[in-house]
């Protein structure tokens, strides 16, 4: 169990029978599949003492532990929360590792290993940071052996590491195809297609899924196909995937012929790109063939390449670096020929998904139609739906006016 923002391949060095419950994907899929249960989970966590303003993914997750049941996306709810053997996670924000401390405590003291991914703009190019994270993972592997009593297999780990890197690179390539007009995929399809890369990107099966998807989307581009034919306005979106829980928001845009064609959340949480090049962000994808040539011949080499790729995730880069976040937005607007920038900070996520965007609205509003409204990833109580709808309508009018003026 743990955060899927972690480097996952080390877990696979323990054997092929390791299965992962990832915090955010589990909470997100529960909110989509069982909205009512999710509300009760959040309430249960609050009744058990967790703060009203805490992360709603966290509360939904802990709520299941409190209620001693777990929901599964196939539509079943199982009584009795499954006790994991260990927790392998990261320290992403000030709540993230506290999340699993609380889960561990409530489940009677599950051994846990948090990794400090001290990210932020360009971190993957800073040897001091890369070595620091690598050293923690090396120590973590020793811990995994001690806790499980299993011998760590470098062979299995290296195979999983290459798969993990490959998936992230393939997803970046798939996203990059949305630069075409019309963009082949919309945000809702991207949200639906990225969970395998989040939940377990270390397997051959996941690599095959994304290789096939890449070919399919390339074909869509070549033949001018798209899942959303009316793309009068192309939107760049910065925020967590709240349109998943609130389809009415996506509908307002769609009715006006506006589509989200690029978002830091779907692109950046499970995808890698060139990143900062000569001081500026580039959303150019990395060549998948590059992954096949990577030298992963030793444990340390494999750890190092993995750490560089994970630290290079746009979301890691933006969490603690306002300048990287701004540079990403500027590049995304240009490269994806956006007509508007939609910012939706989440009220219960304290990372870039909340604050960076307030400053960004201030910076971008003079350059491109920009609207910002509050959302929340899974707690519907915190979403001002009518207000957000009004702002979205205003956003469409702004883009229309901007287009008319430019014509």
């Amino acid at each position, binding site marked *: 169990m743990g955060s899927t923002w972690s480097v996952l391949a080390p877990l696979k060095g323990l054997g092929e029978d390791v299965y992962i419950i990832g915090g955010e994907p589990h909470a997100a899929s529960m909110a989509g599949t069982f909205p009512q249960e999710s509300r009760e989970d959040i309430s249960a966590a609050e009744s*058990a*003492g*967790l*703060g009203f*303003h*805490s*992360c709603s993914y966290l509360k939904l997750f802990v709520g299941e532990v409190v209620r001693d049941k777990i929901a599964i996306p196939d539509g079943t709810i199982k009584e009795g929360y499954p006790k994991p053997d260990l*927790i392998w996670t990261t*320290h992403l*924000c*000030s*709540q993230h*590792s*506290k*999340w*699993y*401390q*609380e889960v*561990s*405590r409530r489940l009677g*003291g*599950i*051994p*846990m*290993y*948090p*990794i*400090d991914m*001290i990210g*932020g703009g360009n971190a993957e190019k800073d040897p*001091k*940071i890369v070595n*620091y994270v690598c*050293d*923690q993972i090396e*120590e*973590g592997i020793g*811990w995994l052996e001690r*806790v499980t009593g299993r011998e760590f297999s470098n062979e299995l780990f290296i195979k999983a590491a290459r798969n993990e890197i490959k998936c992230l690179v393939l997803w970046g390539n798939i996203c990059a195809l949305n630069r075409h007009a019309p963009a082949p995929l919309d945000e809702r399809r991207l949200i639906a297609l990225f969970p395998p890369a989040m939940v377990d990107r270390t397997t051959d099966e996941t690599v095959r899924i994304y290789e096939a998807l890449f070919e399919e989307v390339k074909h869509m581009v070549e033949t001018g196909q798209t899942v959303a034919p009316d793309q009068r306005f192309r939107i760049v979106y910065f925020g967590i995937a709240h349109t998943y829980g609130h389809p009415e928001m996506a509908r307002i845009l769609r009715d006006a012929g506006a589509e989200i064609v690029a978002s830091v959340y779907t692109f950046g949480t499970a995808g890698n790109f060139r990143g900062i090049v000569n001081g500026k962000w580039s959303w150019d994808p990395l060549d998948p063939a590059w992954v096949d040539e990577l030298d992963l011949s030793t444990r340390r080499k494999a750890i190092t390449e993995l750490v560089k790729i994970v630290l290079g995730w746009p979301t890691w880069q933006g*969490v*603690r670096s*306002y300048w990287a976040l701004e540079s990403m937005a500027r590049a995304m607007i240009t490269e994806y020929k956006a007509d508007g920038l939609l910012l939706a*900070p989440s*009220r*219960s996520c*304290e*990372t870039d998904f*909340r*604050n960076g*965007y*307030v*400053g960004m609205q*201030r910076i971008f509003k003079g350059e491109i139609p920009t609207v910002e409204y509050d959302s929340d990833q899974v707690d519907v109580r915190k979403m001002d739906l009518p207000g957000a709808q009004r702002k979205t309508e205003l956003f469409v009018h702004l883009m229309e006016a901007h287009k008319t003026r430019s014509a």
Partner: protein
Amino acid sequence: MTKKGSDAIIERFRHITENPPEYAKSLQAKGQLLAGYMCTHVPEEILYAAGIVPVRILSSHVSQAMTRSYMHETYCSFSHDCAYQGLAHNYDFLDLIVTSSSCIHMGEAFNVWVRFAGFQDKSFLIPYPHIIQTKPAAGFMVASFGEFKQFIEKFVKKSVTDEDLERAIRVYNHTRRLLKRLWEFLRSDNPPITGPEVATVTLASQVMDKQECNQMLEQLVQSLEAKPGKGPSGVRLMVTGGACDDLGIFDLIEHLNDRASLIFIDSCTATRYFWFEVPEGKPDKLQALAEGYISRIPCPAKDNVPGTGEKKRFRFIQQFIEDFKPDGVVFLYQRFCSPQPMDVVALKPILDKLGIPSTELELDTTVPVTQFRTQLEALVEIITRVVPLE
């Protein structure tokens, strides 16, 4: 009437906490270089060794209207208020602003200064581990402090020698020992100084030149040692939580219907600021600084022992409970703070086991005095009913 002895010294400290920019400007008028810092994880010794006085940026307790269009409203009021100090140009005279990567809220307050308050070219962010109890974290801190030292050397255009660092370490350790001595007066049932007074002095020390601060602290401790107690403690209350520079809350604790005494504060504006020492006389000064800062009472945002997920701060809290013998605990934290409530939920069962009642107060820009008073009086009533005071 003019105050004398310890009261006069405390008054001077209080005056400094009431207007830190005024105090800082008085230092600058004497030619002193000044650096604002936003988090107590900044190794102040490096600045001090270079001849720069570190001045902690604290709140002004004014409306957040100005900061709302720069920072999301769901960031804590302390971070808003510190951001405000930059936007309102209350500290434009500073030579530098520095922080270390700590909680996200204070990081954003720093970003506001850098992006929107004119400090872009005179700022430094020290990368600082978030999980501190590891071997790799110590090495990372040494490297990170080394980069900070280089930046400072370039800024002051001179090298900072090991002797400079050792001197600064000793000055700071002296402050820490004196502050500790001051808090230890509160272990007694009849202390010569009150909790709010000690909190005031501790807060002032965070914005002061430590040489001057040490002189005043020495005089204060000396004078208190000869002074009789101010009267027996009432219900002994310990505060634990996040940054709180609103001294009015501590005064409130001592002015309830029933007699109550503030006897300890576990927060980064009080004991977490200084309850540690940096090893002296070590050959590698940056290594010594890393060791010292790792040994601090951990900030809840950085407290997670790999392997077990233990919160090391709880060990300190239990030790403080043993030493200072509180009758009750007040959880005092900033509204919207992320890590604090996650600690409260785990700390409450420990207090329950120890039979120590507690209450929670959420801080905002201004203090809801009546509500807090009601909650605190209820807590005191619970304590006096369950454990009658002699």
